[in-house]
């Protein structure tokens, strides 16, 4: 491949004089080198991967109509407090007299608790997902049904409070768990003195 050579022989036909062609050899290696250089350039300078995003919607600062605000039952309220060094605490129900329990972001920690709490809905979502694969459900239909499942009035409501010692990764992990455990309603709220008091002893 490195060279292309023209036919060096030429038959003498009928005694006519033909000039003898010298064999020419062209070396194509530089072209291949350029080709690889260009490939390397494109491989390094461009990217095929598009980074993913998580969509989140925050509650509005303005006052919400009381009718729209869903009243969270104390039994269904879960509060997560994100502490420092990747610690996370949780308690059920109201802030007063709550039992704060420490856990972590591993699969057997926070996710286990949330899945237990959200068992019914999580199971329904799982069933819907397997149904989607079996019946080749349309994406819009799937989303609509998912919304219906999540609109269940008895679904747990999670409040996420991040202390100043936590980092962004903790927040994203917590939001991720919301997604994985199919929690329908959650909100990121500011931490207050009462909650800080609850974890003061444990958050060292």
């Amino acid at each position, binding site marked *: 491949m490195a060279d292309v050579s023209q036919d060096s022989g030429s038959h003498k036909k009928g005694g006519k004089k033909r000039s003898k062609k010298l064999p020419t050899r062209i070396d194509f290696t530089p072209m291949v080198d350029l080709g690889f250089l260009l490939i390397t350039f494109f491989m390094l300078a*461009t990217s095929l991967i598009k980074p993913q995003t998580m969509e989140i919607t925050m509650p509005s600062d303005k006052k919400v109509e009381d009718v729209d605000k869903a009243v969270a039952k104390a039994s269904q309220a879960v509060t997560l407090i994100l502490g420092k060094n990747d610690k996370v605490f949780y308690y059920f129900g109201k802030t007063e007299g709550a039992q704060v329990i420490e856990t972590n972001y591993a699969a057997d920690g926070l996710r286990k608790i949330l899945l237990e709490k959200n068992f019914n809905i999580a199971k329904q979502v799982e069933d819907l997902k397997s149904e989607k694969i079996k019946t080749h459900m349309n994406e819009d239909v799937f989303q609509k049904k998912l919304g219906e499942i999540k609109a269940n009035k008895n679904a747990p409501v999670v409040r996420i409070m991040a202390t100043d010692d936590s980092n962004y990764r903790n927040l994203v992990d917590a939001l991720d768990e919301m997604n994985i455990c199919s929690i329908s309603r959650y909100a990121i709220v500011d931490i207050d003195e009462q909650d800080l008091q609850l974890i003061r002893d444990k958050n060292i």
Partner: protein
Amino acid sequence: MTAMCDVAFLLLTFFMLTSNFTRKEPVLVATPSSVSEIKIPETNIMTVLVDPTGKVYFGIDGQDKRELLIEKMAATYKVTLTPEERKRFSLLDLFGNPMYAMKAFLNLAPDVRDLPQNNMGIPTDSTDNQFKQWVKLAREVNPDLRIAIKADEKTPFPVIKKVMKSLQELDENRYNLITKLETTPGR
């Protein structure tokens, strides 16, 4: 041997057609991972980059929109910029400097622009919330903008809280957090 040459050119053509150039960012940020598979939109996007030290960078796409934006900001903060400086601004994907340092920053040579000492981050404290102003004017320039926050894993939460609070005050309640894909749920 010609086969190898052919393969090389095929690969080259593939890369030329399917990929797009990555944006140059002032700081390299390691985003946390999540299971979310929603892709980032390519146009009409406002990027807020927060590095681990807490500096805030801001950028929108569209060169003409950037020119409009810098004109408005310059008018608000009473900084005069020559058309040449505005043009230079419109070529930047992301920038992180308070307005009073903007003129000096735009006059730096391109290779020193990304050094940490030349990027002080956009102020987000309540006394001088330039970040809020940038977002507000960017929204005026392009009403369809979607906000995307790209922060490092180790960014301390108070900085993020300030950013989210500024956005909340401007009634920007829908935004995206940029993450990388987590291969298996759980660590």
